[in-house]
């Protein structure tokens, strides 16, 4: 009886230490992953900031006047077309229907 009790205690200690060890390993992995995510997040937000600045309307207008003055024109909404598929047939219609309320 005494031997069984001692064996149980020994097994329990062994299992506990094994579980704790593996938990620690997982915790370490989580920590490393969190740290890499944190680093990537910082890098991503910095890149986003740069992208936001470089693609800000102010910059785009500047690029337009520098490189595409004649290529980029204002959109006339009456010239925008809408593509829709009805019974496998593609239909092209005006985006805005002209209303005669004048």
């Amino acid at each position, binding site marked *: 009886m005494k031997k069984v009790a001692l064996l149980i205690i020994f097994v329990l200690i062994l299992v506990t230490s094994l579980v704790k060890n593996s938990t620690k390993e997982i915790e370490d992995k989580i920590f490393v992953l969190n740290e890499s995510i944190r680093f990537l997040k910082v890098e991503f937000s910095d890149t986003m900031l740069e992208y936001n600045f470089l693609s800000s309307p102010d910059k785009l207008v500047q690029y337009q006047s520098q490189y595409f003055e004649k290529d980029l024109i204002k959109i006339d909404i*009456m010239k925008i077309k809408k593509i829709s598929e009805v019974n496998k047939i593609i239909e092209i219609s005006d985006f805005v229907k002209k209303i005669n309320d004048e």
Partner: protein
Amino acid sequence: MMNKKNSKLILEEYENKFLYEKSKTNLNIEFNRIAFIFFVFTMISIIFSIQLFHLGSLKKENEAKPLIVKKNYRADVIDRNGNYLVKSVSSIDIGISPIDVIDKKRLLINLKWIFPKKNYTEIKKKLNKNKFFKFEKNISQINYEKIMSLGDKAIRPEEKLTRLYPQKNLFSHIIGQIDDDNNGISGIEKSFDKELKSSTEPLSLTVDTDIQFLIREELVRFHSIFRSKGSVAILMNVNNGEIISMVSYPDFDLNKRETLEDLNFINRASKGVYELGSVFKTFTIAAGLEAGLIEVDTEFLNLEKKLKCGKNTIGEYNNEIPSNLTVEQILIRSGNIGSVRIGQKLEIDKLKSFLNKIGILKKINFDIEEVGKPIPFRWGKCKLATVSFGHGITTTPLQLAKGYAIVTNGGFDIIPSLIKKNLDLTQNKKRIIKEGISKKINPILRKIVTKKEGTAGLANIEGYEIGGKTGTAQKTITGGYSRAKVNTFVAVFPISKPKYVMVVLLDEPKTSGDYIYEYRNQKGSYKGTPYNTAGWTSVEVAGKIIEKIGPILATKYIEN
């Protein structure tokens, strides 16, 4: 003798309690006592275990989230498309404590090697004063490593928070500023100070950077054409109150961190309180329709050209206005006397209650603290007459946008907001004015833009179905009116199913001799501003703005 014997007997009675034996410790404690202590410890451990299980079983959503204010932290602010409006970056300032310097000469040589461009005669003076001073702000990572490798105890790095504003001036009035201690002092930075310090997620606003830019660009352009003191443009969703753009010009670059004392830099959109003139006539007519006292085709006959009320005379802006007008014609032609007659029919209580209902008379609750308070006044017969056509009553452009949104969206209450809330448009809609009012008012607003006698023909941009109302008011000065004007245009579009309301206000515009107007309702153009009225100033600005932002609104927000 007897007494001595008795005392011996008593000692024997307690013999079981503490019995000295020939054991190692010579001490034997009664079992009951050990059991009791064991029991107490067991109970305590059971209680703690139960508590642990209870805490462990709690669901995450039931947990109260306390606002943990973090030091040196401030969440970013983004627009509705996820573009950064404000970004926090940590920076390091370097300070020097002269008392801790061991070798001043050596330190100066080393600093000169790292920062060769600095004025070292000044720094030498500061070092001799023995008072702590800031040596360099926002130091780069390379220089930080270099300066710290000197290993001088006198060098004190200080981590600081820096806010970057990639859109520069664009959202200056909305975002606001922070002080050196990371406390918001104006705009969103002030009103959402705690949230920004504790939230891990960026604060998402309802504004759209591209639209804000295009609107501001037009305001800046017309600012120089009409030489106005300031200008405002607000673009709001009429169905949920989301503000897509709010520009108040002049503005300022937040990155420069200037202290502004010039009152001309106030946020005119929400803080500016103005007498707005004829734009109020829409409210008078809507109130009349709501009360059931008038209909769109109700005729007012023999309208005078002038009315006397106390010392003041009320007249028509244009004397060619007919004497017999229907309610619709009164609004299209912007008739003052007709509006007064409708106001008189309504009486004070009904008009006052209607204006209160749509949020014109009281200070508005808004997401930023820079909000103006409409000037209170005492109602009377003359006041009723002037208020009916928008004089003697003040409000902010933001409240005007709200009022028009309610009148045109079917009568549903809305709360103007700058914070994205992912609202469900079908829920929480509270109707505060009768259903049919918008159906009656909206076609009249459209006619103001399309009809020849309407005052807003320059805003008739093809494809956008714009409706709206103009308002030209003289600015008040102590004891009367000045010659300076406030020209306003409220546009609602597309008017058959309103989605957006846009207020354009020009503060003290002047006529332009060189500007060429392209007519919208007829062919041809016109050089120079003939009259300093809203129809020739703010309507033109609004038209140009809608022409620019329209394709984005129509295509980008088609699903919204």
